[in-house]
């Protein structure tokens, strides 16, 4: 789920940036530092949408670095248990398949894949129904439900299932070609 929230961070700026573009430098450094990171509490920071407030800088003795407390608005993405996501399959093996929903890695193990889908090894490993109408392979888009999340300081990993109503493949790369 996405949230638009305000976060705060202390930015250290090298003295060489002190000058007329100090503020721009600060923002660009903030974006570079923060976007794409993950915090266990808020999830992935997807994008910074604005800087609310830059506090007074504090010059650190010895180094000359200045610390600015910066408040910024950002969009974060945090997966929750029970949430329905759409994801792209990245890898398929006998144990299940991996998919990505933006920055989030999701693993769907084979017992959470509908029973009528069988693993087919080969050049393009895939899960296929007996009549071959539905196929899950690399680059397939699937809709899945998250049944478990593990949130680390730097990473969020999810377990998903497609064994439920209205879950499964939503677009098949093979069919499109």
């Amino acid at each position, binding site marked *: 789920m996405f949230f638009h929230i305000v976060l705060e961070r202390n930015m250290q700026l090298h003295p060489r940036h002190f000058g007329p573009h100090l503020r721009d430098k600060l923002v660009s450094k903030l974006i570079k530092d923060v976007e794409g990171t993950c915090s266990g509490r808020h999830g992935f920071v997807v994008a910074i949408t604005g800087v609310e407030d830059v506090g007074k800088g504090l010059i650190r003795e010895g180094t000359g670095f200045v610390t600015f407390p910066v408040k910024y608005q950002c969009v974060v993405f945090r997966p929750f248990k029970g949430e329905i996501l759409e994801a792209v399959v990245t890898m398929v093996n006998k144990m299940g398949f991996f998919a990505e929903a933006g920055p989030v890695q999701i*693993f769907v193990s084979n017992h*959470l894949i509908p029973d009528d889908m069988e693993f087919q090894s080969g050049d393009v490993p895939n899960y296929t129904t007996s009549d071959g109408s539905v196929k899950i392979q690399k680059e397939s888009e699937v809709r899945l439900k998250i*049944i478990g999340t*593990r949130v680390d300081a730097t990473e969020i*990993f999810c377990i998903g*299932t497609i064994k439920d109503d209205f879950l499964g493949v939503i677009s098949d790369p093979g069919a499109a070609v």
Partner: protein
Amino acid sequence: MGFPRHMTTRQPRVPLHLSLVRPIRRRWRRLGRRPACDATRHPPRPPYALSGNRNSGSPSSQCAGCCVMALQPSIEPFNRLVRLAARAFYDDVSMKGDNQPKTSRGDNRGMAVVVLDALTRYRIYIICVVSAVSLSYDLHGRSRLEFARFALEAEFAQDTRPWVREEDLAKALKLHSKQLRRILRFFEEEKLVTRDHRKENAKGTKQHNTAAAAASDGQPVTNKEGEEKVKMHTHSYCCLDYAQICDVVRYRIHRMKKKLKDELDSRNTIQHYICPSCNKRYSAFDALQLVSFTDEYFHCEICNGELVAESDKLASEEMGDGDDNARKRRREKLKDMQQRIEEQLKPLVAQLDRVKNLPAPEFGSLQTWERANIGAFPNGDLGAADSSRNSQGQYGTPMPYMGETKVEVEMLGDGVKEEGAESGKNGSELKVLPPWMIKDGMNLTKEQRGETSKASQFGENSEVKDDKKQDSKDDQSIQEEYIKAYYEALKKKHDEASNNKVKTEVDIPVSDSQSERQVGKKYKREDDDEGIEWEEQQHTGNSTETYKLADLNAEAQESGDDEDDNEWEDG
């Protein structure tokens, strides 16, 4: 719902012919049976057999002479729910302490059920002292009045006592209080029971007891005072929390079903993997690290062995071979389990549904409950304090938390006179009335026509007393004998009537005074009504002669229904 289970004679004084025993016993029992309280079938109410509540307009006041226990209707379904839940879920809960060696105590599984059961019906022992006046003959054929006392130990399964002191409960269950506490703590965790602890001295205890007494419990008020005067003790009280129990049980069932269903669909279960060589376990969360790019399997981080999916715990016993087979078997097992759950929990679920729309009884906290009851107490009879003896007083007291629960045991213990006996018979034709109910009426009539009484009294007395001794089945022969004897006695009396009139009349005043005194003591409220009703009584008394015979027959026939009696005994 219990009615008197056993009656014991305390002072059997009059030697009796055993054959006279049965009929009265029958009447006695019918007393206790609720169906017998049908107002339409009742004979005119014997004047003295009325409880203090007779004017209250409650249904019970219509069937004088019957034990009426009007339970508040709304609590029984909840109790049933608790009992069912106890059996369903707490049947095999073992309360062994962790430090306790397993062999030291016997298996105490099932204790939990017992305790819960006990909480649903905290038993109240009521001893009603019923005194009946009996006549015995001396050698001159003079009648002597004797009082026979019956202690009627009525065990009323009542739900009246929400807050129970744990010591009392332990005593009642003959459990060690520690053991009981362990069980109760368990139930507290399970949210079935609320407990309260407080430090209190004798006064506090007494307060509770008074409250309990006001709530119609039979615990003697004075039992604890002596020891506790000096020290403060921490006492624990416990109480069933019906509202929460409903929720807890419903939630528990829901969880059970959901878990099984999920398991059946293997939905929402996170797969675990195990390394067969080093037994290291991984969950699906580790999948990213376990992926091998050389083949399709997960590999152990340590030994690089191929990981095997671990099957769910429920089916783990039969696991081992091929994936599909195991899955199939597991599904079957789960399905079976699901079915059995449906089936076995059906009564419980039904009861839950029944209870769903009823307001759960609320007792409030210990303090509020006590306050409420103590508040009610002064309004009640004085007898309420002496709860072990005066049942009427107790039950006259309204219980604030339950609405009015009334248990009225209405009996008249005093002088059984001949009229009474007769009217009793009248009663038995129509419906069974215990003879002692009618006594007072008898006294009056006896003065008017004293003769007939002897025989009947003789019969009664003997019956009453031998009741207890004789548990034999009722056989027809006994009934017939009784009837014969009865007739003979009647005849005899008629013959003697003219001769003995003077003597009996001499005796009568004594008996009257005695009986009346007793009536006055025990049933104060009834006094007002006496004058009016006596006249009715007289009428019945006069008319008795003619249909006595019919009565007797009826009695004899009716006596056959022992089965019915058993019914309420079990109850």
